[in-house]
């Protein structure tokens, strides 16, 4: 027979891993299209959580509506982020400058700066402590299945993640927007030649990626009962690690690595003190960069 404790940890790890996966997809989409790293992705996650919380405290709608509001806030945040931190640095349209080192570093720094400003503004407005969440919205009521106990939040995380991953797959493979995103990721100049509006596609990418991030934010906020301005940093870095492990532009790879990361963290924290769990992601990151510089699922990419 299997060990109950172990299965429980596995499920906990998988639900955390799915959250990392939702965030990692945002990173991966944006990296694929623009070849830049969006350091403000963790703040989108935080914005999603706070938008949901505001909706709860002001309107107290049903949970379904709360999630929709968080998604809308995420989409808006993604749009604003692209305009503010990425658009001003795309002054030229040729491929060399679109994917150049200078643009990468400039947008890396500008998204970092925007993320600091957003996080600190949130701390000014809401205070840096954890926000009180009304009891009836917390997703922590236990669900008993045989000898195993789960929280109902875990079911929500599993359901929502699967729906969003499926939706994303459909979007990328079967809609014009999705095909445009893949075309721009493949070759921005070629995409522009065949009449794809690259500007609009880039915005669409940011909106989609940020929507997924915001969904992760509100669900985790309600499941862990912890919504605070700095909440985006740790999952952001871990999703980023998952993206690097997955090979930077492979969505499937990022999802698998996010799940591996979540499970390894859960297993580590059950053997060592809680604090050391954070080390797992960074050790994975360094090991991946040393031994598999192109990621576990990356194809033959450029030099790292």
């Amino acid at each position, binding site marked *: 027979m299997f060990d109950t404790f172990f299965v429980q940890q596995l499920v906990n790890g998988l639900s955390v891993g799915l959250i990392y996966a939702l965030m990692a997809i945002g990173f991966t989409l944006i990296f694929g299209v623009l070849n830049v790293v969006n350091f403000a992705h963790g703040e989108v996650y935080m914005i999603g959580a706070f938008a949901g919380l505001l909706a709860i405290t002001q309107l107290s709608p049903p949970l379904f509506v709360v999630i929709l509001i968080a998604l809308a806030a995420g989409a808006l945040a993604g749009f604003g982020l692209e305009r503010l931190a990425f658009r001003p640095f795309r002054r030229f349209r040729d491929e060399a400058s679109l994917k150049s*080192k200078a643009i990468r570093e400039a947008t890396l720094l500008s998204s970092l700066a925007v993320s*600091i400003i957003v996080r*600190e503004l949130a701390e000014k407005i809401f205070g840096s402590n954890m926000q009180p969440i009304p009891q009836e919205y917390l997703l922590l009521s236990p669900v008993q299945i045989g000898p195993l106990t789960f929280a109902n939040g875990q079911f929500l995380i599993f359901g929502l993640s699967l729906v969003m991953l499926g939706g994303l797959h459909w979007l990328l493979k079967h809609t014009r927007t999705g095909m445009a995103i893949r075309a721009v990721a493949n070759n921005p100049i070629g995409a522009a030649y065949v009449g794809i509006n690259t500007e609009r596609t880039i915005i669409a990418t940011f909106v989609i990626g940020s929507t997924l991030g915001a969904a992760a934010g509100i669900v985790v906020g309600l499941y862990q009962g912890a919504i605070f301005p700095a909440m985006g940093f740790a999952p952001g870095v871990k999703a980023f690690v998952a993206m690097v492990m997955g090979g930077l532009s492979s969505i499937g790879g990022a999802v698998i690595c996010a799940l591996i990361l979540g499970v390894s963290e859960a297993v580590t924290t059950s053997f060592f003190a809680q604090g050391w769990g954070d080390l797992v992601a960074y050790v994975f990151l360094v090991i991946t960069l040393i031994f598999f510089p192109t990621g576990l699922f990356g194809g033959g990419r450029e030099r790292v």
Partner: protein
Amino acid sequence: MDRRISIFILLAFVLVALPGGLALLGGGYWFRVVTTIGVFSVLTMSANLVTGTTGLMSLGHAGFYGIGAYTAALLATQLHWPFFLTLPAAGLVTAAIGILLALPTMRLIGIYFAVATLGLGEIIHVSLLNWVSFTRGPMGIAAIPGISIEGLFSASDIVNYYAVALVAVAAMVVLGRLTHSYYGNALRAVREDDQCASSMGLNVVSLKIQSFAVACFFAGVAGGLWAHTTGYISPADFRFSESILILAMMVVGGLGSLPGAILGAIILLGLPEVLRPIGDYRMIVVGAVMFLSILFLPRGLLGETSVLTVVRKQFGLAWDKNLNLGWRQ
């Protein structure tokens, strides 16, 4: 202006005018602010060698600063070493650990190196936080002896100031001589195009490791100074946000320029103090200044090229046609 006069004015300002003015202002608090600026100037100048001159964006500098601070603090509290031994020890230990940690990441370039150093910085932070038996974890190390020699002088604001100022001047001289030399040009060649530099016969990996080690040495010394001048350190002082602060100082001042690094430290630490009456907006100011400077001054306030011209005229050799020596115009 003659080179000697420039140096004399600089030294007179740092060693006489500034402490005198601060003492007239009432000392205490303002000494604390200026000491912090001094420590961060050393940090930013050292990070500048890696990020600005060699072109490897480091997002984990605060971690190495933390190693230096903990080395100095543990040596001073456990083994009762005096500060003139702990400071070099902090630098050497940090450089050694830095080389060990960075050796495997030296093959990486660009964003991959940035991410790897972010990971290293966080590994150091998590270790400082959780290795309670060695570092006392989140409680931090308190009662670190100040900078004093029995019979000569005892710890005070003015002693702290002079210690930091002398180290900062020394760091500036060493890093300045290092970057404004043929060696510095080799580092810049690595920054501009490492494959090309390698094909010209430069040992790129070795150059990267050397510049990283020197940067870690000064980061460690800065950490030791911080430990001795504040008397209390905890892992919260060495988080990712500190690395970002250092990066923002470099970006605002101008990547690759030493005076720019100091100017960045003065602006990003001084501005929040000046704005204190309005409220505590420290990190918002950091973010806003960083964002605006990337947007409008991509080269920074004292960008490398303009700074290089200044330095050439004031301190360095101009290109001498007869000797065929010096800077190329």
